[in-house]
């Protein structure tokens, strides 16, 4: 899901960078000093989760779990996922440097949106109800992300339209897996540590 340097047109790269700066600023504003350890440790757990490969048929996919990140972290998911992408680019060589902004927006904006939309629903009702909403949120985040990747490719040139469509359709199984996994994760978290999602302000639990 990472886009590399050199593929996108300048307006897309610049637009992505500017929006990413805005998103990070917004996320940091919602991150008081007291919450930094929690956000940092969660950011590290999502980084580790992205190293997990789950089987799908004869192949395997690695997890992204940006929906879950948004549900747990709210706006703080933006800087947290940005940090993950930065570390991946610098130490693993995944993605690129000038496209960091675009990649951050593509992954973190869906996370934040899902967090804002589904977080109250996930915290309410029985753990099973929360899990179902969490699953929908987890799947929706990947759908938004693939759509955002497809749109950033398409805005850069008509030659990418086919690639963009293939990116979207080939990720439908990933959406399902992420939905199932996020739902199960929420179910467990709701039963083991219900206060994870209970927060009056809707900011980081």
């Amino acid at each position, binding site marked *: 899901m990472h886009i*590399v*340097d*050199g*593929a996108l047109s300048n307006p897309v790269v610049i637009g992505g960078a500017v929006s990413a700066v805005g998103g990070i*600023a917004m996320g940091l504003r919602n*991150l008081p*000093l*007291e919450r*930094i*350890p*929690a*956000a*940092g*440790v*969660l*950011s*590290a*757990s999502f*980084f*580790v*989760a992205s*190293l*997990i490969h*789950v*089987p*799908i*048929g004869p192949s395997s996919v690695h997890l992204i*779990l940006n929906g*879950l990140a948004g549900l747990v972290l709210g706006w703080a998911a933006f*800087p*947290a996922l940005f*940090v*993950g992408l930065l*570390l991946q*680019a*610098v*130490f*693993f*060589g*995944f*993605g*690129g*440097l*000038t496209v960091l902004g675009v990649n951050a927006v593509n992954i973190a904006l869906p996370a934040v949106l899902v967090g804002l939309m589904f977080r109250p629903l996930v915290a309410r009702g029985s753990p099973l109800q929360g899990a179902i909403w969490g699953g929908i949120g987890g799947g929706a985040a990947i759908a938004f992300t693939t759509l955002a990747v497809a749109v950033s490719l398409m805005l850069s040139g008509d*030659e*990418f339209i*086919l*690639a963009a469509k*293939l990116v979207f359709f080939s990720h439908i199984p990933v959406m399902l*897996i992420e939905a199932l*996994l*996020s739902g*199960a*994760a929420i*179910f*467990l*978290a709701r039963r*083991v*540590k219900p206060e*994870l999602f209970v927060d009056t302000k809707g900011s980081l639990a």
Partner: protein
Amino acid sequence: MTYVLTGAERPLSGIGAFRAKVTALDPRMRIVMTAVYAVVVVSLSNLWVLSAALGLSMWLLAFSGLPPRKTLKRMAMMDSFIIFMLVLLPFTVPGTPVLSVWGLEASWEGLRRAAEIALTANAVILAVMTLVGSMEPVTMGHALFALKTPERLVHLMMFTIRYIDVLREEYQRLSTSMKLRGFRPGTNWHTYRSYGYLVGMMLVRAIERSERILAAMKCRGFSGRIILLEDFRLRRADLLFAAALTAALAALIWAEAFYAAS
């Protein structure tokens, strides 16, 4: 154990074992020059000039003292992700046909575009890995802070760097205990639910761990200030390196303009 970010077999301080020329240079200068390098290379489009840029990145790798094979392997891994998009390009860009596969015409222009993206992506990521990725992760955090990155973002990054290895061990403990209980991953509901519980458990433990961390930090009077353990200084070698790299970039820009004019 191997460390996730650095891939080293020994703790972070052990990296000094293969400390070479680039790693002795000022981290702030390396970060700034890498950003400049990336912007310049992305703006190039001539294939010869881009090949020269990739050559420059290779030279940086040789100069950096990073294990070349491992680094190139990582670069090749990125290529395996994008190869799919690159293979499609010749068929989607209209232009003079060069060859046809199953009745689909591949265009010369598309082939050129694919080569351009591949060269750019590899040149930039290789420079990023050699100039910035060769730092200790903590040093990178301090250097970014010295370059006026918001304090909280740096804190967040330092926490992430610190806890990636701790949490990966936690993940490995959990997956070992799953294996001991006879868990075999496959394409089924049971697998996805179990992985979901695994992730959920990791999050719960992470939150609980962060509560203990916060308490320990409060106990030590944490105020949110980043204390720089090393003071960064621009030495002559740093300025020389920056000047040499700038000259090389200027030469690339000149070559690009020259080819565009001719």
